[in-house]
């Protein structure tokens, strides 16, 4: 179709303008600020090269220790939340997939529904379920004489990590389950039927038929879950305020306080770029791994 160039530019212009103003400009501006001594209140106070990055990565400044504390806490959260979010969601998908057709839709919806609420609602609910003093769970445990004193679910470790993990799993596991259910639905039923005749058991079928067929989805879920957990902010911000003693203060909270509390835009943006690079490294890993798989398949 030969429509004029003018029209095509006219159509793409609104998006391009928004994209430049609200993505491209902040992207380069952030990079610019990371190379400057840049205060939130006083603005630009001069070019300092990669000093901010060196300060964060190698010096003995408080920015160095807070960045690596945040990174460590974030990695702990990733290590705690990713296995249940991936493996239990697969188990849930298999459970739903094997249910009688009549109730499949019902249970799928129930397991998925918690994903619809905001992180602030999750925090608000779990704070009052888990609170050390007057929380529902502690009242229940003490009434049943399971514990004599309230458990400090939100006040001391290791309970705080457990609470954050449970709240997160409850909140987002349904999304992963949905992706797995979609994957399971695409497997040809006749393969299972053929293997049933051969007398294959559940585990044999899972290992030799299900897993190979959902490998790509499994990998996708794993990677997106790692990235999502890496971006954790709302749950610790609202449920624990990063405590006790900053043990649950994740990277985004560290960046946030470098900017909002210490007024250091330069350091904050350098930290955000470093964090972005780490996340991109993870997704790059996914990209190459899936490429590898395609090559193998062609052989």
């Amino acid at each position, binding site marked *: 179709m030969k429509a004029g160039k003018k029209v095509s530019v006219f159509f793409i212009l609104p998006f391009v303008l928004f994209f430049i103003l609200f993505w491209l400009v902040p992207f380069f*501006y952030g990079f610019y600020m990371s190379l400057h001594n840049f205060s939130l209140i006083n603005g630009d106070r001069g070019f300092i090269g990669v000093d901010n990055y060196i300060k964060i990565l190698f010096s003995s400044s408080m920015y160095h220790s807070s960045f690596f504390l945040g990174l460590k806490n974030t990695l702990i959260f990733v290590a705690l939340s990713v296995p249940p979010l991936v493996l239990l969601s697969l188990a849930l998908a298999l459970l739903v997939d094997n249910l009688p057709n009549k109730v499949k839709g019902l*249970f799928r919806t129930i397991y998925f529904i918690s994903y619809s609420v905001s992180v602030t609602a999750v925090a608000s609910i779990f704070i009052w379920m888990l609170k050390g003093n007057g929380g529902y769970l502690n009242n229940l445990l003490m009434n049943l004489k399971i514990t004599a004193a309230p458990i400090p679910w939100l006040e001391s470790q290791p309970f705080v990590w457990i609470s954050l993990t449970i709240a997160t799993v409850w909140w987002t596991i349904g999304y992963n389950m949905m992706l797995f259910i979609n994957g399971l639905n695409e497997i040809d039923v006749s393969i299972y039927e053929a293997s049933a005749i051969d007398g294959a*058991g559940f585990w044999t079928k899972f290992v030799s038929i299900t897993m190979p067929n959902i490998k790509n989805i499994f990998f996708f879920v794993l990677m997106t879950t790692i990235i999502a957990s890496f971006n954790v902010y709302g749950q610790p911000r609202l449920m624990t305020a990063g405590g006790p003693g900053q043990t649950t203060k994740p990277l985004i909270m560290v960046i946030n306080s470098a900017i909002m509390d210490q007024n250091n835009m330069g350091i904050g943006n350098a930290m955000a770029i470093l964090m972005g690079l780490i996340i991109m490294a993870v997704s790059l890993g996914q990209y190459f791994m899936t490429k590898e798989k395609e090559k193998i398949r062609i052989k």
Partner: protein
Amino acid sequence: MITKKIPNIILTIIACIVAYAFLLPLLFMVSTSFKGLSDALGSSSLLPQQVTFKNYVDLFNQTSSAPILKWAFNTLVVTVLGTMLRLITSTLAAYSLARLNVPFKKGILIGLIWAMAIPEIVTYFPLFYIFKNTGMLNTYLPLILPSGAGAMTVYLIYQFMLGFPRELEEAAFVDGASLVKILLRIVLPSVKPILITQGFIVFLGLYNTYLWPSLVVSRTEMNTITLGIASLVLGENYVNPGLMMAATVVAVIPTILIFMFLNKYIVRGFTQSGIK
């Protein structure tokens, strides 16, 4: 369908137990919102000893610390305008890329892919600084305007359009139909499915997002309802779980209803953004 060996009844029982675990926090939220103060703080039973509507009455009367109707109104403005802005800019751009001979097409497409690959956290703080210096904090603008730059949405609609035969549009063009007419009568109906599903995803994202609004809004009366719940959670004065839960119930009802009745569209939207 892996096996038929485990009887359906046992699987269904397991599914029910799991379902209880999933529903428990939501049941807790609803039932606590109907509890009186001492009941909410002291009891270990999920159901209220005596159902009271006091929390809801208080909630809608406490207009100074928690103007929940204003929050709901803000949320409506932000989600509706943001979603419309996203869909309009994205559809026009996708059409231009997929069907018209737009200059720098290749460069724009590569830009889109880069924008999708770079984590959002990198642009949040500089964007906050720009809005701060232009005096736009605590207005609707920073909550709505960035929605116009949805690289992922453009790309998904673009791909969807590529999968559609262009003959119909060409025939209409030969017949002398104007481009606007073709866009409204032929293109829009054919991309309607992806606009609906992506519309839901964008809407839910705007409704539930927390980090970005927490950067650009600090005045109570400018909160969205999601941000309002955060301000209640962080506020020292909210020691009444019943009142907190009543506010949370009001906040989550719209999205829960959408999920319950329209989850077909939501799932399709998520899988479009995820894997093909």
